[in-house]
């Protein structure tokens, strides 16, 4: 056990800091903002491409995939430096974190060349088509059908909640290819280009407001998808599904940890110097959030240390649960503490963090509402608890 990193890791950090300092775009050029989770502004595409080309986009990958074969501690200091500067690697998080990562893990060389690399270089953006109206938590119940007909699949059905689909070039879609098989065994994964005839995307606003459009319904009406777009083996899609969610899971906690820390910084700034800072009840509850932020970071580090030793850590399954709920608790605390004053919050529209999808300007009531994205998407908190109970604690299935 040790608090700091070794010299090799620190040297890696220095190297990355030097690169960042030389390559971060001029903040004046970043005024154009993302339109959705797949609508990436040109300056951000260029920056992401530069990161890829210089081997700093996904440091764990080999250099031909935008990395430098970094070990886990090196990846960690890399993410620390990005977080410290509020720099987002990609404004198409599903594209980089899930779609291209799944293609790299499960696809063939041609698919990597054709889709994964362009997504990583931000030439294309991607969205993730998993959920359906009848298949949310019970994802394996998905019913969108794909029938192999010669060298094409014919796809019919509907996806929903597909973040950024209206701005995306490709979708990674999970479809049912064997309706006779048990539900986990008849699923496949297809890459579908969004300009394919018969594919209809209908964006709709989320809780953020009538202009906050990220969700889509995606309808498939006899959409022809080349059989070469099948990722992995036919009917082996469930493995990819789990892999896709597990992707970057090793490092996903850093996102939870950093966004909680950021919210905490804002919360402290909000309360400091006010009478709330002397209110024992507020301090008591705030203390708990501060503990959460430390504990999540520490548990993440313990997970890393175990992985570095070749162990399979249990921590990752609780970090999403703890991280998303801790944010919700903190936002609720601040909202409650401000009381009626929350109604009169000056909403400052200046960009605080030019390299981040900045939501700092929104009110605490919106911030509170946004925390539900964390406790609902990517497996709800209830589902996470079921998973931890069964897979980590070994309790019998209900």
């Amino acid at each position, binding site marked *: *056990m*040790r*608090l*700091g*990193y070794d010299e090799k890791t620190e040297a890696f950090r220095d190297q990355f800091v030097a690169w960042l300092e030389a390559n971060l775009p001029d903040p004046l050029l970043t005024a154009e903002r993302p339109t959705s989770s797949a609508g990436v502004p040109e300056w951000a595409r260029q920056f992401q491409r530069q990161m890829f080309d210089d081997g700093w986009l996904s440091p764990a990958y080999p250099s031909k995939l935008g990395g430098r074969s970094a070990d886990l*501690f090196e990846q960690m200091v890399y993410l620390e430096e990005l977080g410290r500067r509020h720099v987002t690697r990609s404004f198409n998080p599903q594209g980089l974190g899930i779609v291209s990562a799944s293609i790299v893990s499960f696809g063939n060389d041609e698919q990597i060349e054709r889709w994964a690399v362009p997504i990583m270089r931000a030439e294309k953006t991607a969205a993730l088509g998993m959920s359906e109206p009848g298949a949310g938590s019970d994802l394996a119940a998905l019913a969108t059908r794909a029938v192999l007909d010669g060298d094409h699949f014919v796809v019919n059905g509907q996806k929903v909640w597909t973040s950024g689909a209206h701005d995306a070039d490709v979708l990674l879609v999970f479809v049912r290819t064997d309706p006779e098989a048990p539900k986990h065994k008849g699923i496949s994964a297809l890459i579908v280009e969004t300009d394919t005839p018969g594919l209809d995307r209908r964006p709709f606003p989320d809780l953020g407001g009538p202009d906050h459009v990220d969700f889509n319904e995606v309808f498939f009406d006899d959409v022809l998808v080349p059989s070469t777009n099948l990722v992995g083996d036919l009917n082996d899609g469930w493995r990819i599904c789990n892999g896709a969610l597990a992707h970057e899971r090793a490092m996903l906690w850093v996102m939870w940890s950093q966004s909680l820390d950021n919210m*905490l910084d804002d919360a*402290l700034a909000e*309360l*400091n110097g006010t009478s709330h*800072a002397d209110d*024992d009840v*507020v*301090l*008591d*509850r*705030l*203390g*708990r959030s*501060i*503990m*959460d932020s*430390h*504990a999540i970071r*520490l*548990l993440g*580090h*313990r997970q*890393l*240390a*175990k992985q*570095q*030793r070749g162990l399979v850590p249990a*921590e990752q399954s*609780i970090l999403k*649960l*703890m991280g998303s709920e801790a944010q919700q608790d903190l936002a609720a605390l601040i909202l409650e503490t401000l009381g009626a004053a929350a109604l009169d919050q000056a909403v400052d529209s200046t960009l605080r963090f030019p390299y981040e999808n900045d939501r700092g300007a929104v009110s605490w009531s919106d911030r509170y509402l946004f925390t539900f994205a964390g406790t609902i998407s990517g497996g709800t908190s*209830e589902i996470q*608890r*079921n998973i*931890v*109970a*069964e897979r*980590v*604690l*070994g*309790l*019998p*299935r*209900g």
Partner: protein
Amino acid sequence: MDFELTDDQLELQRIARDVLDREAPASLARDIAEGSGSADELWATLTSLDWPALCLPEPVGGLGHGWVELAVLLEEMGRHVAPGPFAATVAQFVPAVRHAGTLDQQERFLAPVAAAGATGALAVDEGAGTWDLAQIRASATRDGDSFVLSGIKCFVVDGASAEEIAVVVRVDGGLRVVVVPGEAVAARELNPIDATTRHATIDLEGVRVGHDRLLVGSDSDDVVVRAVQEATVGVAASTLGACQRILDLNLDHARERQQFGVPIGSFQAVKHKLVDMYCLVERTRALVYFAALAFDSDDDRRAIATSMAKAGAGECQQRCVQDGLQLFGGIGYTWEHELQLFLRRAKVGELHFGSSSSHRRRIARCAMSAP
């Protein structure tokens, strides 16, 4: 940072667990609670295995291990609800002497601990139950070759049995530690919640000790603050161990106990409670070992780390005791079942060295005042 126990530390944990499985079965705690048992034999065994020396500095005959190793041992002691003077001696008395004493004084008071398992205690609070050093009034006044003490000390762990007691007093307004022989003070034992963790009130009024019993290694209050921090984290580590055992007992029970034709662990209302207990145990472990690391590295986050460990343990025991007892049903409500021994050990930790809530407020104040 590398936040996992090293192979050597894991080995120490394994050995400690084996020793305590053998030497400190739950029946020992029960015998003590029923008035028929004693911790003496266990202490003799642990002493023969060098436990008291393990985390003492080498110059006084210790083996020089750090706080992480000590946390490993304390966690295991809690997990076994092990009785005896280990915690108060090694995590409370020793830090006080180590930080406040000169090298000679360390040698004088710690060498007997390392060599023969001499026992110690630490006396801080004076009745408020906050362990707030600002409230300390007890004093030591120079009189010729000796000091004369005044005041009382409350909730002193092992206060009625320790051979030496490190007492925090004021001397000319500053915080100091004076080492008082246990037999020199009048001690009144309190009602134990957990029969294996004994507290006493001790009366210092008029007690006279040699001047060389005033620790003079430093004239700063900081050394006293540091000693109390370490003692506080020691309590948190022991509480953590007890909570881990409550969780383990519950997991076994949830898999074995059948109702409605299925194990109760298949009911979601049961599962989710167990998951929340598990998350809190892991959260607490992270915070306790962070504090231990902060001591070992003299990190300046010691104060906040201490409060986070203590408040974390407090929140954890609250959930584990509450749901851990509830999920056992009627059998948990009996004297006979061993669960109650661990519930008591978990609960008692909340009551000394500051409540969760007081520590959470300190954490928030620390964070507010940081730039």
